[in-house]
């Protein structure tokens, strides 16, 4: 099922961007199929998916850098398919930044304003403002090859923001940076975008990055839109096993709905909350990894959902333990708090499951 379909045909005035049944092929191979979603003014959308899922292609279609084969793109209610990229007034931040190597920081950032024929003194002022915003004041006259990776990323952001684009497109802008820098810049980018109220579409293959930056997340897989939702909804209720697999969930049990509220699987009959029973065709049960606690550590009621097994692996991860266990023939994985520490490998373990961590989904 595709949540995005609901948008189709809806003419919501508050939507700034509406994409309807967008399709694209490259040399006969379909890259994107029937993509539909809508975005409100000021929202940040993350396109999340493995490499080859078509997220960059979708971004480039929005930018007008690729040609769509079918479907429409409405921006502020206007069909922009025939508008060439340089007249769309969209900003774009490229994967490798694509900074002009023959221009200084100042000249790179000023380029878009020059294209708008901005008067010189206003241009200088606005360049200064964005450079201050991204924390690069003082580096105006540096050459691009004298900048570090993080500084280049900031110049690229400043350059795409300077002309005050109506829509900002970011193509894995943190992809080539190291982990620590990435984490810091992810937060910064969100703060900057929110302070300016820019509507943005952000491509990434990193789930943590998507969750920390986005208001909405679109999961793409093999050129189709799997789910379009807020990060929290997405995490709580992935619609299918593809999405769940991509989000890193491993406790996926096959089975069938026995009767209302009960799912039969290799672990026996498990109770599932009514709001988590949604797809009628549900045949997979997801147990989210954070939804378990050690039985003896909690003052559990007698009717609590218990699960016992043998520990097969045990990794200390800093803020939690990731443990693997085998219950009957079923391998499962959970994240447990570090206190009290879970038993050693080979020892039995008894867990209490949080009923809200049990979600039904379809194949």
């Amino acid at each position, binding site marked *: 099922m595709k949540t995005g379909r609901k948008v189709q045909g809806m003419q919501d005035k508050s939507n700034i961007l509406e994409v309807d049944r967008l399709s694209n092929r490259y040399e006969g191979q379909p890259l994107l199929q029937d993509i539909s979603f809508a975005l409100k003014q000021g929202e940040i959308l993350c396109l999340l998916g493995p490499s080859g899922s078509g997220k960059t292609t979708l971004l480039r279609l929005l930018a007008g*850098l690729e040609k769509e084969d079918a479907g429409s793109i409405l921006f502020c209610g206007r069909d922009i398919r025939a508008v060439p990229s*340089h007249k769309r007034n969209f900003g774009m931040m*490229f994967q490798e930044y694509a900074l002009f190597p023959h221009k200084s920081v100042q000249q790179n950032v000023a380029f878009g304003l020059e294209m708008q024929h901005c008067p010189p003194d206003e241009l200088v002022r606005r360049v200064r403002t964005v450079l201050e915003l991204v924390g690069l004041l003082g580096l105006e006259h540096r050459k691009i090859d004298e900048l570090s990776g993080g500084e280049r990323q900031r110049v690229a952001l400043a350059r795409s923001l300077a*002309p005050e684009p109506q829509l900002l497109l970011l193509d894995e802008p943190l992809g080539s940076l190291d982990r620590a820098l990435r984490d810091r810049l992810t937060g910064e980018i969100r703060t900057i975008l929110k302070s300016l109220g820019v509507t943005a579409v952000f491509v990434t293959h990193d789930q943590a990055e998507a969750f920390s930056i986005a208001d909405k997340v679109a999961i793409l897989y093999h050129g189709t839109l799997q789910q379009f939702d807020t990060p929290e909804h997405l995490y709580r209720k992935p619609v299918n096993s593809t999405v769940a697999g991509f989000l890193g969930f491993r406790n996926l049990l096959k089975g069938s709905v026995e009767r209302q509220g009960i799912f039969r699987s290799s672990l026996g009959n498990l109770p599932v909350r009514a709001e988590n029973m949604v797809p009628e065709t549900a045949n997979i049960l997801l147990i989210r990894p954070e939804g378990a606690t050690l039985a003896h550590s909690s003052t559990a009621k007698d009717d609590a959902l218990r699960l016992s097994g043998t520990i097969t692996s045990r990794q200390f991860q800093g803020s939690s333990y990731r443990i693997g266990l085998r219950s009957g023939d079923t391998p499962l994985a959970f994240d447990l708090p570090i206190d009290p520490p879970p038993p050693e490998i080979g020892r039995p373990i008894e867990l209490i499951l949080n009923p809200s961590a049990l979600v039904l989904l379809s194949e």
Partner: protein
Amino acid sequence: MKQPRPLFRWAVFSLPLLFLLLFYFYPLGKIVLLSFLPDGNWDPARLGKLVNSPVYGRILWFTCWQAALSTVITLVLALPGAYVFARYRFFGKNLLQALMTVPFVLPTVVTAAAFRALLGTNGLLNTWLMHGLRLSQPPINIDQTVAFFLLAHVFYNYTLVLRIVGGFWGGLDPDLRAAAKMLGASPWQTFRRITLPLLMPAIGSAALLVFIFCFTSFGVVLILGGPGYATLEVEIYRQSVQLFNLPMAAALSLIQIVVNFLLMWLHARLGKRSRIAFYTDSASGTAIKVESPAEKILIGVNLLFMVILLVTPLLALVVRSFTGQDGLTLAYYSALFTTQARSVFFVEPIAAVANSVGFALAAMTIAVILGLLASTFLASARERGAPVSSFWDAIIMLPLATSAVTLGFGYIITLNRPPLNLRDSLALVPIAHALVAFPFVVRCILPSLKQIPQTLREAATLLGASPYQVWRRVDIPIIGRAILVGAVFAFSISMGEFGASAFVTRPHTPTMPVAIFRFLGQPGDINYGQAMAMSSILMLVTCSGFWLIGRLDASKKPPQASL
């Protein structure tokens, strides 16, 4: 990083260094001495007189403006072609790309002969036009004019510009164009503000190379320009070989050396900043399919031009070599196998083929050994000792900047008496050719040698390989193909070398280009036809070498030789 012992490095470098000292600096030093001390006395006035003389001022001026004009014409014609190659994918692109190497390796003498065959007074076009239109006079009269050799210069350098600029253009990050578009730049603004400035180093580098090649142009001007025109290079030849005015030739050579060094230095500076590849296959990863009719016309016009410019002269050459006054004939080829009474040769002309191949194999061997040694020396100094290494790098490149005619002239004034009397030795030709080819070999081998990460050698060492085993089992297999490419380059350069050969070949053992030149200088249809036949054979031999590289290129990525 562990450095090889300095003593060992210098031992490796001693052979190339000795070769350069004996066969480059010694003859050149002698030229300088001869121009300042013509009769054993210090006479700067003579040089001053030369500079003030209107004749030589005119020669210098002519050399400059014809080179400048050739450069401008070539750029204007080749830049649209470079765009087409960089930007689009189309049918037959690979074939055309292979064709692009042909003029690059074609000996100047063959080029000259090919243009004669097409557009000369006895050329195919004139013959056909006279026949078809019943004219009594040949309608095209550009033989012995500036236009004729300018055309040959364009033929020669068109593909050079196309390869350098096209390759660089195709390698530009397409996201830069997209970024400019997204910032509101129209296609024209994107070209003017982003693409053109980024292309400038490549265009500059190509223009400078074309200028250098045209400035030192010898065979083409000598053959197509006729006696009325002389570049510095041609005048050096005339002064020394025809007029025996050695001091004057030496003085002219000195001017030639100075100007060439300046140009090469400028080129090296440009090249260092932008890392322009000299021998690459143009990147086709970003090329797009042709769609609009305007694009189709643009591409069609350019491809048509390329084919006419590049293919027709070569085709005419081959056709002319089989066409006598009474139609198809093998007479010219069979004449190559006979010694005629009034021939310009003492032996049957076909012997020149054996001579050339023999000389080329010898020159190739010398150049590859020297090139390998010099590259090893240069590559081992890459960390820290960079300034020293770039100094030696420049020294090794010097022969490239020196005109072959100057070099040949230097040889006949120095290597003709003890301790080094090589005047009658056959070794002089391969030595001269090896010297010209040696920098090319280094340019082929050095980049791939430098690309081998030191960790690879360290890994081999830790796995128990001795330094020799590391070199034999790691370095050599990785650079093997680069060595091969260098070898084929050296072979082709030697096969086509004319400037130095004109001085150092002995009458009994002419090389093919020298033989062609002698044929062209003689009257009569049979001589002319033999020149065409010999040129066709030379073209076949040179191209088969590059065809071999092409075959290897198909399986592996080519190493890049940057100039």
